[in-house]
């Protein structure tokens, strides 16, 4: 829709801006002046479908799907460079997180499938043990997302293993029950 076509207002989602704006961390987004300081600063900008600045203009115009389906949000490495430089103090990185969550929730994370798989498994690890278990995490990730590419991960794994940096057994925290109660309570309260 974005390319080579007239964009009809009726096809846009004009509540999108307010939706993001009302999330914690999104409170400054309406003030973006499209200066491009964020895109200029972003180490991943060139690989992104839309560099951060454009994400904000898309949000403003109501291009909901374009934003949520873009690879942009999955290429953000949380370096926060954009956020500290933004002249309007927009918490760009936090907005990226919000978009990631929205994309996962709505099943629009196609381009971020791998990252989403990694993240989801990470959550599983933490919920299961209370801590991350990197060996299991990587194994699960490879099985789920990179099965055909598995060999690719071997050299690094080996290098870690040989230097005694990959634990075999997970560490379970003692009061896992407490952690689960907290998690369940959040589930019950609902996200913000």
């Amino acid at each position, binding site marked *: 829709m974005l390319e080579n076509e007239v964009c009809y207002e009726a096809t846009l989602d004009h509540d999108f801006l307010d939706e993001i704006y009302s999330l914690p961390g999104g409170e400054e987004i309406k003030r973006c002046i499209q200066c491009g300081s964020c895109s200029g600063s972003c*180490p991943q900008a060139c690989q992104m479908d839309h560099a951060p600045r454009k994400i904000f203009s898309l949000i403003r115009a109501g291009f909901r799907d374009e934003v949520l389906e873009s690879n942009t949000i999955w290429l953000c490495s949380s370096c926060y460079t954009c956020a500290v430089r933004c002249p309007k103090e927009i918490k760009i990185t936090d907005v990226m997180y919000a978009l990631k969550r929205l994309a996962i929730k709505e099943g629009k994370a196609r381009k971020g499938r791998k990252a989403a798989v990694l*993240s989801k498994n990470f959550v599983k690890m933490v919920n299961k043990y*209370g*801590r*991350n278990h990197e060996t299991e995490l990587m194994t699960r990730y490879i099985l789920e*997302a990179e099965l055909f590419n598995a060999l690719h991960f071997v050299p690094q794994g080996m290098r870690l293993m040989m230097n005694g940096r*990959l634990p075999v057994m997970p560490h379970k925290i003692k009061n896992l029950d*407490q*952690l689960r109660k907290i*998690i369940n309570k959040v589930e019950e309260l609902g996200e913000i």
Partner: protein
Amino acid sequence: MKYTYYPGCSVTATANLYQESIDTVAPSLGIELEELDDWNCCGATAYMSVRELMSFAISARNLAMAEKFHRDLVTPCSACYLVLNKTNHYFNDYPDMRSKIGKALEAGGLSYSGNVRVRHILDVIVNDVDMEKISSQVTRDLKELRVAPYYGCQIVRPEMGFDDPDEPESMDRLIETLGAETVDYSMKTKCCGASLMGTEEKMALALCRDLLMDAQKKGAHCIVTLCPLCQMNLDIYQPKVNSLFKTDFKIPVIYITQLIGIALGASPAELGMKRLGVKVSGEMKRIIEGA
């Protein structure tokens, strides 16, 4: 000086060499770290990508447990440092978050009032420890060693207040205190790709390449870092960078606490040096061992 210590998951696994060196040097610096009992994963950046409130809630469990000690909470991991601080920020500045997190903690029999100060171990070393005390303990002459301090992202950004987000200098100062020479290069706060290494490897490798290249060009013998993820990307993936970009980097990437240990005369074994992917060799080896 006594602190509550939050190691973070990586330090117990892929970054165990970091922990080893911390254990070795902390006593000499007069830093007493008491590990927070039964701490859990802070959620890192991954958890936050799936569930926000939940990630803050589990992260706050640690803060709640730490609060009763009335001491600063110290972590060596930049990601933990960021996440715990961010939890504090969202907890303290967004009333809705605060009340929900509060309720969740309550379900676990905990409560938190938002008053734990979370600090990175670098902050503690450069700001709480007397620099002269460190320099007086230096036994190895590192004057010829050219060290490229690599700060990475999450210790200085978003602005945490103990150093400049664009031009941090606390580690530079520390390196000089240890008698080594800092290499002034522009990439010291540029991103290494972080967790993208898992999902978008090529992109992350390119970032590592730029970084290694700049450090090498400016004549660095080694890169010093303070984040498990940075260290892994630059160290374990260095061969991959070489094969992909036809480069020939052999730059050891060590932790700042390892460098401190070296300067103070600790043995490589005590510092976990043998666990490095890219081993110390050449000029650096000569300087360290020759001294």
